[in-house]
């Protein structure tokens, strides 16, 4: 794909403009999967572009999504004076300096209806168990919770985060994995003042260290 075979620091050498769709598509690719808003500076650093270029691309994408401009096939550059197309179902917003793609506000009713469908007010057993593990072993990574529960917990952790019961507690300095902890909303729902007030578990349960060894041995 790229001819960075001679790249000493392969990372630094990547030229996004050689990729299909160019730098603009690269910015788009990142924005599309990014959970947290990113600043132009953060984007520029990861993309090997200058902040000025990223800012121009962001503005271009924003206009494109809003339907004000479309890159015509026979033009080399997008033009503001270009023809107008329909707006997309999503928009690029800059909130407090961070950029993120959201669903377009016009569709809030439809999206809201879609989101609510099939939502229950109760946590599933899987979600409860995962919450219990996080509560007693926090701060803990998803991989560790998976190891303890024996199943993949990614989507359950997302649900718990969405429900405001658990939150990001920084990253593990060693593995770089995101760690999770329970929130004050969780304490509120439990009716306790702090995690220290959670009932003690029976002492025969292996500590986190024990579990770690036990399960890591099985990891391939």
């Amino acid at each position: 794909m790229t001819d960075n075979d001679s790249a000493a620091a392969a990372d630094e050498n990547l030229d996004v403009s050689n990729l299909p769709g160019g730098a603009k598509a690269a910015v788009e690719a990142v924005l599309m999967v990014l959970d947290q808003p990113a600043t132009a500076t953060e984007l520029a650093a990861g993309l090997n572009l200058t902040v000025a270029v990223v800012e121009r691309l962001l503005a271009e994408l924003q206009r494109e999504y809003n339907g004000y401009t479309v890159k015509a096939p026979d033009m080399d550059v997008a033009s503001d004076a270009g023809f107008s197309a329909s707006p997309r179902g999503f928009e690029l917003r800059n909130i407090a300096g961070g950029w993120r793609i959201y669903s377009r506000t016009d569709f809030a009713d439809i999206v809201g209806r879609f989101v609510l469908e099939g939502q229950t007010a109760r946590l599933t057993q899987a979600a409860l168990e995962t919450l219990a593990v996080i509560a007693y072993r926090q701060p803990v990574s998803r991989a560790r919770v998976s190891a303890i529960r024996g199943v993949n917990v990614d989507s359950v952790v997302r649900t718990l985060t969405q429900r405001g019961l658990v939150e990001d507690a920084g990253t593990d300095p060693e593995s770089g994995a995101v760690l999770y902890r329970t929130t004050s909303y969780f304490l509120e729902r439990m009716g306790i003042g702090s995690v220290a007030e959670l009932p003690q578990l029976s002492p025969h349960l292996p500590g986190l260290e024990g579990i770690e060894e036990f399960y890591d041995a099985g990891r391939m």
Partner: protein
Amino acid sequence: MAESKPGFEVRLANFTGPFDLLLGLIAKHQLDITEVAIATVTDEFIKYIRKLQKLGEDWALDEASEFLVIAATLLDLKAARLLPAGEVEDDEDIALLEARDLLFARLLQYKAFKQVAGLIGETLEQESRRFPRQVALEEHFAAMLPELVWKHTPGQFAKLAEAALEPKAPKPTEVGLGHLHGSAVSVKEQAEILGLRLQLGNPLSFRALIADAESTLVVVARFLALLEMFRDKVVAFDQLSPLGDLTVHWTADGQDWSTENLSEEYEEQP
């Protein structure tokens, strides 16, 4: 290359050439069949068949079934050579030959899975280069979610945590009879191990006694050993609740005990 079928060639440490020639040489006792690595032949053959399929040859299936027949014969030959008397007559010999065929068939099957495993690995690798959009729900939508129903007391929640944190016992699996032939586990040896541990004085749970068992077979052997030791009145069992932990006590204080006393019924080698 295109004008005639290339034919299957074998490349072994001690022979390179067409498969037919290999068979001929073996038949004429010019090559020792016991020196032929069947696994390598199989590898080569599968490579060959795949090449044919890439070329769109529709007789690949015929070749394959032919190869199976020949390979089976080859195995017969090899087995016959390896048998002490060099003859394939009585039922035992035939059974042995069938076992070898089976082994070979399994080898082929194993190779097939190895190959698709490679393909699956490649696909997973390729796919891992795509990232799905799975962002958290936008705040105004999250705010629309129905208020959570929460009915757990801290005590109930702790119970839930205990259950979730309890190391999971391996789920039951059937006892593969195949292993019995592979690695014999001696009940006597296991009894020896258990005896030494229990004579230290502390009662131990069955779970603890099998914690280091490297296979299901060892677990079974230890279980049988305990039954034997119970019969010899050197151990006693305690179980507080149905399906609860089984605790084993050593009861043969000071008394001489040796695994030599164990009955022989499990020690018969097939």
